[in-house]
């Protein structure tokens, strides 16, 4: 398997390695599509540890993380959940969008995320001490304002925090080039477009264009799509449903990549 491509934005790689060496859990904040998941995957490969990814949602129960009893012909048996697996065998347990999970679910992480590093399983009465290679990583997007969701301070304060943002222009360009194989001029244009869209604030647009979307656009262009069309479908339409916002974004794209029949 080829190595996962990841271009560091600043000191995150060193920090992650240091935290891994000291058995400290990590919290990653950042907007969607800025490379959080890719970073964890790359670090897992780098450190030679398995990554157990769980995408959290509001119906995620503790059993989904820890494990549950199942039945076979011999009766019931215990099946480890992804968290328990990582705790037992070592590896990175990555809880994506932790903020979406119910608060009572995240509380089970407490004993794992501090000096104790143990996971008690009340259904089997077992208390597992974490494997030396076990590492807990959680991530969330702080951009959404929400009364009902948010990490309890007691959970938050158990982690080393890394804040991600969209990569700087030159890094982002390099990423687009590498991921899509598009020519450099177009990559530069895409980065310019992104830079402009990211100047809008939350009131104009819910969230700015992600690196992921830029790569989509670049990929469509490499496949032979008209750059204007590619941008409309991958960037403009996915950012907003409001007509006036769409109109202006379309305008912006048309300024960078002229429509074939124009003027």
């Amino acid at each position, binding site marked *: 398997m080829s190595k996962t491509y990841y271009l560091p934005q600043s000191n995150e790689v060193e920090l992650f390695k240091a935290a891994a060496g000291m058995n400290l859990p990590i919290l990653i904040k950042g907007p969607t599509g800025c490379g959080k998941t890719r970073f964890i995957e790359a670090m897992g490969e780098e450190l030679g540890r398995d990554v157990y990814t769980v995408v959290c949602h509001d119906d995620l129960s503790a059993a989904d993380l820890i494990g549950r009893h199942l039945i076979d012909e011999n009766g019931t048996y215990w099946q480890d959940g992804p968290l328990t697996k990582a705790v037992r065998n070592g590896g990175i347990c990555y809880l994506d969008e932790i903020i979406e999970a119910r608060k009572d679910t995240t509380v089970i992480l407490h004993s794992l995320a501090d000096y104790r590093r143990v996971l008690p399983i009340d259904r089997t009465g077992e208390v597992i001490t974490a494997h030396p290679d076990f590492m807990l990583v959680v991530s969330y997007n*702080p951009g959404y*304002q929400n009364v009902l969701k948010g990490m309890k301070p007691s959970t938050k304060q158990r982690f080393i925090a890394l804040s991600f943002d969209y990569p700087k222009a030159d890094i982002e360009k390099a990423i687009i080039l590498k991921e899509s194989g598009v020519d450099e001029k177009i990559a530069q244009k895409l980065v310019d477009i992104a830079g402009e869209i990211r100047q*809008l604030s*939350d*009131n104009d647009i819910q969230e700015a264009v992600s690196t992921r979307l830029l790569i989509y656009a670049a990929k469509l262009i490499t496949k032979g799509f008209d750059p204007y069309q590619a941008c409309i479908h991958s960037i403009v339409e996915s950012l907003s449903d409001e007509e*006036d916002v769409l109109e202006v974004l379309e305008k912006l794209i048309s*300024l960078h990549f*002229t429509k074939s029949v124009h003027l």
Partner: protein
Amino acid sequence: MDEQVGKFWDKYLTKKASRLYKKEEVLFTDKSKSLKLFYHLLGGEKGKELHITDKRSIKTSRTFLEKFSGTGKTFFLPWQEEKGIYLPATLSYFPLKQHNEMHFFWLIAMLTKVNIKSKNMRAENEKVAQFLIKKYAGFSEFYTYAHSFLISNYPELSTIDPSIEDSLVDNYPNPLWIYPSLSSNNKLLDVDDEEETLRQPDEPKKTETLVIKKKSEQIDDKKETDGLLLFLPESIMSFMEQVRVDRQENDSYDEDALYNAEDLDEITLGQKDANLSSRIKMDLDISANSVEQYPLGRGHFIDEWDYNKEVYLKKYVCIKPFISLNIEPIMLPKRLQKMMKKIQSELDLMELDRIKRDNLPYGDDINMDTWIDYKGHQNRSNHPQRFFQTYERKMRDMATLILADVSLSTEAGITQEIRVIDTIQDSLMVFAESLHRLEDRFAIYTFSSIKNTKVNFHIIKNFKEKYSDLVRGRIHAIKPGYYTRMGAAIRESAKILEKQQSGNKLLLILSDGKPNDVDRYDGRYGIEDTKKAIEEAKQKGITPFCITIDLDAKEYLPYLFGRNSYAVIRDAQKLPKLLPEIYMNLTK
């Protein structure tokens, strides 16, 4: 010969008149939203507003003919200053609509990049134009076309006398360029008198009336402390009116008033609602045409934080609860019904949320997990036999108190027809409707203040009261007045919210500016007291969230509410639609 000259002259004039393509003109007002967004997109300062400019006189290098015919003297030219940017009301230089539209976007792009302080505006404009052409393929096409078109069709705009020195080229009227502000360039440009008068704010007038009002209130307060008058004179009016009605009903009003005064707290808290609404209904039976502000008792005192001394001033602020009487119940206005339809689709999405509850002793389905758990358990007798699960509609378990600032500043206009208070009223109506449909529990209060002795706390709807046409009537009857003693209003609201049983309590504050009052409650003092009040609310398990239309709010709101607990709405007219959206985002 004369005839020939006349013909020539006529031809010249008609040519001039038909030069602009009025049929293809693009109006600024049609595009203002897009243009503003585009301005932000290209990195324009978010605080700046877009306006329509007046004609500007320009001393051009007019030809003798032009001087004679009077053309080429005034132009609608785009310019900008510290506070805002100014664009022509319409553009119609080009024979195609798309080009005229593009012209607007071009100007916006220029505006984001041009440095208005530059000494040589000609070089600056050319530099920025070159930059834009190079960066945007779309602009490059437009500019090449527009430039040559303008030169060939509007010679008076583009003839430039090479003898004019660079320092004077501000007088060169190129519709594709940006000009410095009128004020900074007086020596070159004649400022239109009209505009001067337009820009004169009508604020002095407002303060005048305020002072007058304040004076009369001060007198009232003194009287009040005598203990002779229980109510303000204005409320005595309602008192008289009430007495007449009450006699018909064979009911003693005095007793009611006393009773009200005693139970004041509870009324604000929404406990005695039945009593209250029944009386309001009765009042409505008589055909009263004026809305009365009915005080619910004498008022009560709460603390205020003095940051200088770092102590609470005990029982320092007097909260006076009011309710509007003689209110006409109204339906949701037509224009808002339209908006409601749009919002409804978003509301529907929220209601789809259902939640699974398991570990129940009885329910709709068997939960396999718990059953297997039970089977796998070593000591079954100890295991709870809760094998069922059921799907319930998610109880949102929200209690939201909306606290709207109705100080006199909300009387300021957003546009010529719409005042801030109008959008606040619209927002409250749409929002109340949304909350009602979501079946979330909510209450609405408004506040305004005159010093610590009188913080008016108007009840629009408390938690117990059902949402009805009457509530809308009360929203409709909101009148702006006085100042913004925000801390006191927040404390009072927190007190009400604290008594609610819901798991999640949201205090939504709708404001248009900084906390302020006529006494020392201004600047730092007001901010610190408000901050303290918010901290107290947070300690009570209440989540405060502030929505403001004050563009300067970014300076003090993060300090008051924390980074993620406020929203600044730039376009106040969008408030009615945004408010429910923000709420849904907050509680999704």
